[in-house]
């Protein structure tokens, strides 16, 4: 093995093990930032030692043990300092013993709980959203600051600051590294799911790009979703979110033309959809349905599944999609959901009915500058034979959109109607 090879081998182990190592350490030292530093120190030690001596048989345990020794050193130093300060030797000895017992205990198989605690801490609502995203990718994804910066198209120092500020906030506000109490669980879980879905969408929005770093966020989000599904197997929304991401990601190979133009769902070559992801997504949705009532993510997965099951666009069960959007609208009322419902109703029950729903949104402040409102209305008007009005709507959509590719698409539709 060359030096570069062994370096990459250590990195691979780090990616597999880092979240669990950090999670175990966080429980031992009660501080996420310190846990991560200790784990990083262990990684540096591994990079020095493994290329010479070979990768140990249980590399995760090696990393944890190495970091643990450093933690004990730190405890000792701190204890020595306190002894000098307070001159109470006996107290220190006791505390050192209990610290050692605690450390041993931490190496038992609490790993699942430790990981879950770390996820809930990284996604704590006290942190700003960017802080949550960066910290989650750093602590749970094992990504470097440079990799995160590249993925979010942000300068590296900015991301570094977000991470250190998030760690400091956790420490300053004395946020305990623990599972949320049952009463808080729904809200706290919602924050975790939101972070994972934001990571996914950040990648999905860019999945046509040349840079691997951004599309790989989709992979990372799905991986986090799978980890969470393993840790919280009884939560329907966890399976719902994973299913939603998998079904959406299944379309990545089909959603862009060679020149980068987006290909809309009805025009996609369905044979290019990733069948493994479709199958996994449908299975995950089924699990979510069996576990209880579908939440917002489960419902969105169910809608995506209607498309995934249709072999041709014509075979799409639009009536079911319209009904699911109605449920989603009840659960999370939003003009964007209503607009999607207008599309589905327009397909299922005629353009006229769809247009009624879309027209009701014309006064919505939230959609005032939203290009898709005129685009949807343009489509429905065109189907009703009102070509002039439709063309005007598409031109308005073209004015509103900030995406050059979309603008072309809308202008083409308008020109086709003139």
């Amino acid at each position: 093995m060359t030096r570069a090879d062994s370096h990459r081998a250590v990195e691979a182990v780090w990616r597999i093990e880092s979240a669990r190592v950090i999670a175990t350490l966080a429980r031992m030292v009660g501080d996420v930032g310190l846990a991560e530093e200790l784990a990083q120190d262990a990684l540096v030690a591994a990079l020095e030692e493994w290329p010479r001596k070979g990768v140990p048989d249980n590399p995760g345990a090696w990393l944890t043990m190495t970091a643990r020794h450093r933690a004990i050193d730190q405890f000792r130093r701190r204890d020595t300092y306190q002894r000098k300060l307070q001159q109470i030797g006996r107290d220190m000895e006791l505390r050192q013993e209990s610290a050692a017992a605690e450390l041993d205990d931490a190496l038992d198989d609490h790993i699942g709980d430790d990981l879950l605690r770390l996820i809930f801490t990284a996604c704590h609502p006290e942190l700003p959203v960017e802080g949550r995203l960066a910290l989650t990718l750093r602590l749970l994804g094992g990504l470097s600051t440079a990799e995160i910066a590249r993925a979010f198209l942000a300068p590296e120092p900015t991301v570094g600051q977000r991470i250190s500020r998030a760690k400091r906030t956790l420490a300053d506000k004395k946020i305990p590294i623990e599972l949320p109490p049952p009463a808080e669980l729904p809200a706290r879980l919602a924050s975790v799911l939101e972070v994972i879905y934001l990571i996914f969408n950040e990648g999905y929005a860019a999945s046509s790009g040349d840079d691997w770093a951004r599309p790989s966020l989709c992979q990372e989000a799905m991986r986090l979703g799978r980890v969470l599904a393993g840790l919280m197997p009884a939560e329907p929304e966890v399976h719902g979110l994973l299913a939603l991401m998998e079904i959406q990601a299944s379309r990545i190979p089909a959603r862009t033309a060679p020149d980068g133009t987006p290909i809309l769902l009805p025009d996609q070559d369905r044979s290019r959809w990733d069948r493994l992801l479709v199958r996994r997504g449908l299975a995950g949705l089924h699990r979510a349905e069996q576990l209880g009532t579908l939440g917002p993510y489960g419902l969105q997965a169910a809608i995506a599944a209607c498309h995934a099951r249709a072999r041709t666009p014509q075979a799409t069960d639009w009536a079911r999609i319209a009904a699911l959007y109605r449920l989603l609208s009840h659960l999370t009322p939003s003009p964007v959901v209503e607009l999607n419902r207008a599309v589905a109703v327009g397909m299922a029950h005629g353009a006229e009915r769809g247009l009624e729903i879309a027209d009701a949104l014309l006064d919505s402040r939230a959609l005032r500058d939203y290009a898709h409102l005129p685009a949807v209305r343009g489509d429905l008007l065109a189907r009703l034979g009102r070509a002039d009005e439709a063309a005007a709507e598409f031109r308005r959509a073209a004015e509103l959109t900030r995406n050059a590719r979309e603008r072309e698409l809308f202008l083409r539709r308008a020109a086709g109607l003139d």
Partner: protein
Amino acid sequence: MRYLVTLKVTAQPDGPPPADLMEAIMKLGQEATESGALLDTSGLAPSSEGARVEISGGRLIVSDGPFAEAKEMISYALYEVRTKEEAVEWASRFVRLHRDLWPGWEGEADVLRLFGPADFAPPA
């Protein structure tokens, strides 16, 4: 990136695999699933229960197993990982279990990348 890892055995002691090994394999599989890397896996029945369909000299020939090769394929695993090294690491852990828990066992795991969207230019 997706990798298919196929496990082939070249030599193994008589008798069924030790219970310890089977338990360790289960545990590793669970670990790989929970870490989000393992998408699918299964053991394979002996090729004596399978068949081979081949084209030779323009003829299609179907023959029942067992196949004549010295190496019998006994399982496969499908991983979704970020680097080849990660797939190699999972494969190493898997074969190491065989070495440690079934003395006399010899075999090999092939780590093969599956083509993904990036490998194909979309149709013009």
